[in-house]
């Protein structure tokens, strides 16, 4: 029976990821119009329509103006859909459980608004896997709009995030995620910041009036496509930042984006890394490897269209011997570039003179080291420092439809039968040894008492009664679920050393 529940849970998880839009619309009971049923996975060039599947009915929880979203989250079970109706919600929402679908309901142009009043920290913090967050207007938080800490398999879409502190959308340590159709502005660091993640698609967002538009940092397998990135200080960044625990950034595709007029005065927090971004750069590749830049429209960026640089780009940062500092194997394919570099920073002005550039503007600049990079039709552009770039032989990235995984990333990777072992040695062994008297009686003694009766142990440890005066009373282990208690009981009865 338990196995069936687990299986259902996995189905739900899969469905969240691949069929999120469908299932809500199908089972709608209230009069409220359903959320958009756009299928972000089979249209628009992303792969894997085969991953779509229907699932059983989702339990719907409704939250209306005056109620607490957090309370709904606290009461929610894995798989629940929490629908938040228009109104203003002044709270920080944290989600430390799996499979939660948090959905705003937009009615006649009225949104559910998360309001930080410039005093709350983050709007939404999640650590669970298989999360969907959509249709919220998020304003005036001090920290981030939506922040993920190690949740795998997430969808963050259709949100409108305005004047909200440091990062607008920031998944960290996550694998397999989609960030699409969000509108973000007024963010004092990166509006969309993919930090230390793998397999992320950032698609069709509008990002403007922020210090950095979209930043892919110390991440691998990221697709940044179809975004409208305008009027930021810097447009799209692929960075290795030194001093982080995950050191690499490679396999990034930046294609089909509109990267326009990113000339905003830098208003980054003093000391932050982006505070040293020069205004007016469309794309910046710092130390990242295997970045492909293809079919973007890059215009009106006053410093330069594309800059490749090593880690010396950022001054006043602690170096990291484990961070490889050079951008290697960069691939620049066809891009529409015009009117870039009309007012470059002094260093680039000097470089123009040094390289004896007579043409107007600067499209592409490479500074510092790096090997194995290439550019297609270099003569189309005004370039500086691309002497080592060869003519690209790459056929392009058309074969990559998405960098999301075909199946959801596993939230855990240990089989249930191993969990009893982990609990026994990880917790019980603090008081019980196989044949030695420790704080509690030896496991051998317990085995003799509960032979063929694991349920007896599982029940006892939830609510121990003091039986043996020669031992201290056992503290209750009811923090372990019934399932886990039975697993450890079975394991305890199975060992012989």
């Amino acid at each position, binding site marked *: 029976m338990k196995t069936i529940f687990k299986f259902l849970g996995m189905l739900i998880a899969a469905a969240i990821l691949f069929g999120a839009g469908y299932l809500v619309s199908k089972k709608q009971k209230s009069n409220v119009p359903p959320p958009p049923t756009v299928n972000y996975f089979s249209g628009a060039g992303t792969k894997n329509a085969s991953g779509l599947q229907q699932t059983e009915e989702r339990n719907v929880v409704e939250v209306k103006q005056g109620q607490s979203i957090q309370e709904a989250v606290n009461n929610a079970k894995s798989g629940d859909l929490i629908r938040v109706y228009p109104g203003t919600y002044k709270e920080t929402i944290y989600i430390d459980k799996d499979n939660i679908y948090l959905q705003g309901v937009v009615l006649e142009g009225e949104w559910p608004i998360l309001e930080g009043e410039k005093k709350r*920290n983050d709007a939404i913090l999640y650590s669970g896997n298989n999360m969907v967050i959509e249709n919220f207007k998020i304003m005036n938080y001090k*920290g981030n709009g939506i922040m993920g800490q*190690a949740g795998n398999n997430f969808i963050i879409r259709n949100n409108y995030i305005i004047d909200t502190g440091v990062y607008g959308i920031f998944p960290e340590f996550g694998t397999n995620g989609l960030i699409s159709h969000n509108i973000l502005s007024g963010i004092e660091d990166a509006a969309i910041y993919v930090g230390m993640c793998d397999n992320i698609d950032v698609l069709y967002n509008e990002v403007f009036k922020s210090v950095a538009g979209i930043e892919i940092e110390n991440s691998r397998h990221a697709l940044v496509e179809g975004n409208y990135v305008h009027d930021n200080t810097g447009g799209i960044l692929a960075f290795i930042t030194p*001093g982080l625990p995950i050191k690499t950034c490679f396999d990034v595709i930046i294609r089909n984006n509109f990267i326009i007029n990113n000339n905003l005065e830098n208003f980054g927090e003093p000391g932050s890394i982006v505070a040293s971004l020069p205004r007016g750069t469309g794309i910046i590749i710092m130390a990242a490897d295997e970045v492909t830049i293809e079919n973007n429209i890059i215009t009106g960026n006053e410093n330069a269209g594309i800059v490749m640089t090593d880690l010396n780009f950022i001054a006043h940062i602690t170096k990291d011997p484990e961070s490889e500092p050079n951008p290697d194997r960069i691939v620049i394919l066809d891009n529409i570039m015009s009117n870039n570099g009309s007012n470059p920073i002094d260093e680039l002005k000097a470089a123009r003179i040094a390289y004896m550039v007579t043409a107007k503007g600067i499209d592409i600049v490479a500074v510092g080291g790096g090997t194995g990079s290439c550019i297609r039709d270099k003569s189309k552009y005004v370039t500086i420092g691309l002497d080592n770039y060869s003519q690209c032989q790459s056929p392009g990235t058309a074969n990559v439809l998405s960098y999301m995984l075909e199946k959801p990333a596993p939230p855990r990777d240990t089989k249930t039968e191993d969990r009893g072992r982990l609990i026994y040695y990880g917790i019980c062994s603090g008081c019980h040894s196989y044949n030695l008297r420790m704080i509690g009686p030896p496991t051998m003694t317990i085995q003799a008492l509960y032979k063929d009766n694991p349920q007896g142990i599982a029940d006892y440890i939830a609510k121990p009664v003091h039986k043996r005066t020669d031992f201290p009373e056992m503290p209750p282990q009811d923090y372990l679920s019934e399932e886990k208690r039975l697993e450890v009981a079975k394991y305890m009865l199975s060992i012989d050393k």
Partner: protein
Amino acid sequence: MKNYSSLIFFLAIVFLTACKKENTGTIKLAQHCPPGFELTADNKCLCRSLYHQYNSLNNAGVGGLQTGLPPMRDGFSPQQIDLGRYLFFDPVLSGNQKLSCASCHNPALGFSDGQARSTGFNGQLLNRAAPTLWNVAFLKSFFWDARASTLEEQMQGPLYAENEMNNTQEKLLSSLNAILGYRELFSQAFPKKNNNQIQINEVYTALAAFESSLISLNSRYDLYAHGYHEALKKNEIEGMNVFRSFVARCAECHTPPLFTNQQIAVLGTPEQEDLPFDAGAEKTFNDPSMRGGFKVPTLRNIAQTAPYMHSGKFASLQDVVTFYNSGRGHAVPENEKLSLHWHIWEPNLTQYEIERVVDFLNTLTDESFKPAAPQELPSGLQPVHLKKIIS
């Protein structure tokens, strides 16, 4: 009453120290692993934790609540771990036989020593605070300035430093080899050795084995992380949310599950008044951008290890959190130009939030696997780490 018994205890120690009597080979090393470890068929202890259910991105062991641990040192035998325990508490390791590892890494004080700066060979104050040893098995660099990359390398620092244990390799080996009890224990722990002389690498291995067995992963926070949300009270959850928020940003460097990302960070914390500015990792890496940089310490059992920071400058966790809230570089000397970490900023936390963060830090305490100090040492010396607590 308490004082009275302490006095008796103290006198007993003085008495026993006075009539030092070598213990001759009656000790049998443990054949079972310490708590938290499973014994394998080939007599190795492997660490087991509920965190082994989870994976982590790039196997880096950093992330959120349900994230796997980084790679660790385990696989020592029960006998090596137990031998390491005797050595760890034995002042015979020091030049004057008055200091043991436990003098500065006292299990009763969170495997630190409760001092701002540790006490050296002649009772002099050393320059930095003693870091905890809880969960060192997971670390990839050691010392505040990250100048050692293995436990074996690390321990040679204090063992042979003139102002610390002030021993020499030759003297250490000759003292140990002169003790029949230790020769016997080393042959139990290293059964394949082909002579009965203790080798220096065996000493290092045994100490590393014991230190690697100090696991603390069962705090109330951990119960919450594994899914039992009732384990934390409302104020503690509030604190956790401030801790991991992008305003306080504590979790960006003190990243779960170990509450360290093991990187070097330049914070600009103040020094003790009588000491010059501590260059920290600048010296290790010969890199001026690391001036004043120190390794991010774990926060597990942090409530047990005041005072805080490399200088021991902050007496309480409240003081530490207040430091982070007081503005970027506010304590940096005027003549120092440091590459302060980008997460050092002005979060403008309220007093209420500061107190909640401290509440949360107190939930990271778990000493359920704390090992017992040996009742008797093979050297016949008395454990010295107790004196400090008694006085």
